[in-house]
């Protein structure tokens, strides 16, 4: 169990759900340096370390399915090619850098419709199931969240996922989406408003978790 205790100023600078998500430690500098030199063994460690985060990010942005595996593979290949340009001493952590690549790949795939839209909008996994309200009534909170998120525009959903699930600061969300921080803030805000409207009381529990989470820990960044 990893724990992150954030100060008030840190929480203020990060996304609304940032405090909830504790992160696994990033790869050590030596491994990253070897990755930068495109050492296959080091890069294997990189994939092992970050594959769950990439799958989590992508599947929440484009929906579950085999296309996520293809997209994730493409993300890691892009990362491998771009590794020599990654600044180990820069502000961006490897996870932030990689998930920025993943986000752009996901948005690009959605834009070009190379991933099926169905899983998010009309797929059996979501749309043929109950509405968020019905899911909540059945005690299926996860399904309700997924269904509510599926109604968000792509850019809002990406901003929401990065901020709530991956601990991105608003500036990092903006950088990932290629927008100013203020625009990122607006997107996160609007996404949260829509989620609040869809989830009702369940969202209050969500907010309550955020309030309590500054000193708690979670096991995995997912």
């Amino acid at each position, binding site marked *: 169990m990893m724990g992150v205790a954030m100060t008030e100023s840190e929480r203020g600078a990060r996304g609304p759900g940032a405090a909830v998500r504790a992160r696994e430690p990033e790869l050590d500098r030596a491994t990253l340096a070897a990755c930068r030199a*495109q050492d296959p063994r080091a890069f*294997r460690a990189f994939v092992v370390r970050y*594959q769950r985060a990439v799958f989590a990010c992508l*599947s929440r942005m484009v929906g579950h399915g085999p296309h996520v*595996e293809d997209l*994730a593979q493409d993300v890691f290949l892009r990362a491998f090619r771009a590794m020599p340009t990654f600044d180990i001493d820069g502000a961006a952590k490897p996870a932030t850098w990689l998930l920025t690549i993943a986000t752009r790949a996901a948005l690009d795939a959605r834009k070009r419709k190379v991933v099926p839209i169905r899983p998010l909008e009309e797929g059996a996994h979501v749309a043929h199931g109950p509405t968020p309200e019905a899911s909540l009534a059945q005690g299926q909170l996860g399904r309700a969240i997924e269904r509510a998120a599926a109604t968000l525009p792509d850019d809002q959903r990406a901003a929401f996922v990065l901020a*709530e699930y991956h601990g991105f600061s608003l500036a990092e969300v903006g950088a990932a989406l290629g927008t100013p921080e203020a625009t990122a803030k607006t997107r996160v805000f609007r996404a949260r408003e829509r989620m609040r409207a869809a989830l009702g009381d369940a969202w209050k529990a969500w907010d309550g*978790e955020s309030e309590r989470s500054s000193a708690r820990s979670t096991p995995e960044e997912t």
Partner: protein
Amino acid sequence: MDPRDEWTPQEPPRDFVDRVMAEVDRTQRPSAGRDERRVIRGSWRVAGTALALGVAAGVALAVSAHHGGASHGEAVVAERTQMALGARAVAVLEGGAHVAWTGDDVDQTAGDVFYRVEPGGAFRVHTPAGDVQVLGTCFRVRVASVASVASEGTTEAVVNGRDIKVGAIGAAVAAAAIVSVYEGKVAVSHARESVTLTAGETARADGVGVRRASADGTPSVEASASGSSTLMAANENLAEQVQDYKRRLDAIAAQKATTERALADAQKKLAIAESDGQVTAPKNPYDLSQDDLKDLAAKGEVHSRMPCLSPDANGGSVSDGTLAADGLPASEAAPINAAVAQSTSQFWGTLQPLCAQALGGKSDIAQVLGPQACQSVVFEMAKKNEDTEEEIRQVSEILAGERPMPKNPSALGVVGQLIYQESGASKALEQSLAQSIGPDDAHAFVYGEHGCWSNSSWGAGPRKTTPGTPAVTGTTLGAPLPP
């Protein structure tokens, strides 16, 4: 439980890591993709060994070993990106460029790339339109479709029959490579043809052959009969000329070294004779008095001495051995190295913006090229656009006190500014050092016989008009200097 965790993500399959690594391995294989390209351009051949020859005469190049990228890899960039290719090369890729490299072999299939290659064995860039081979130098390769190159190349030129021929035949190859050289020599080869380029020169390789071109890639009229026996003969003659010029330069360099040794011996003997047998150190010929400067101004000459420039503009460290040879204690190494670094940094501060200007405002590329290549770039550009002889005369007159320094240094022209900066480097260094190690030691170091120094002499010949008469009114020199 955090309600967020209710939205379960998709988990990676067990074999996902293996699949990614298999794909990485496939793209990393040295022959991946390259064999296919070699088949396509099977008629190309690698040029013979090219000679790496420093252009900025008298400037020693201390190669740093700060590079060290992956030994193989591939990159497609969306925006300007600098990266190390292998152990010897740094490349600046413009957006849209694509390179794949293994060791010292680079496949550049698209885009515009600057290369800086440290001296060593052959370094090759393969393009769909021909190959480039160097030993260590700075150059740029631009790969484009024939249509785009032809359109770029004719924007400022009249389209003639030859251009049309290039486009028509080139369509079969569908690509052209424009190679521009900033330092040293580069061989550009295509089938049985090879053109050797020196600093400031450009060549174009495409479906009809390889030949010299203007900076924008437009084929030179005199060399564009590519593919014909005329060009083959011309290339052979050119190669012979290059060899001949090199032999002459080598002979001149050897003669210069011999003469300098004889001069040093004679000066030593003279000093002994003038001091009644007491040995005193001969005066360094670059330790100039005001009378010396006036004599030089009358001849239209400027002499300069400054510490050697390293590629990264940081200067080299002075060894304890050098200090001992100049009769200086090792304890003075730190202030001397600091002052030398400051001197080279100041010169780079003047040179870098001029270099960036010559490169069309690309300061980051100037940074990659480094001082030595930048000197070549700036001088080559200036030779085409400025009256450099007049600039040398004006600087000599300023140094002699016969002409005031213009309020705006740019009025001296690009070469004038550089020479002025160089000519003041030794005195500035001596003054700076005098504050930390004393005037005697400072003088001994700056004008000693040891260490790495760049001594330069610039000669334009005496002025034919009256000194102070504004003789230059060219656009690059700006307004005439005040008399």
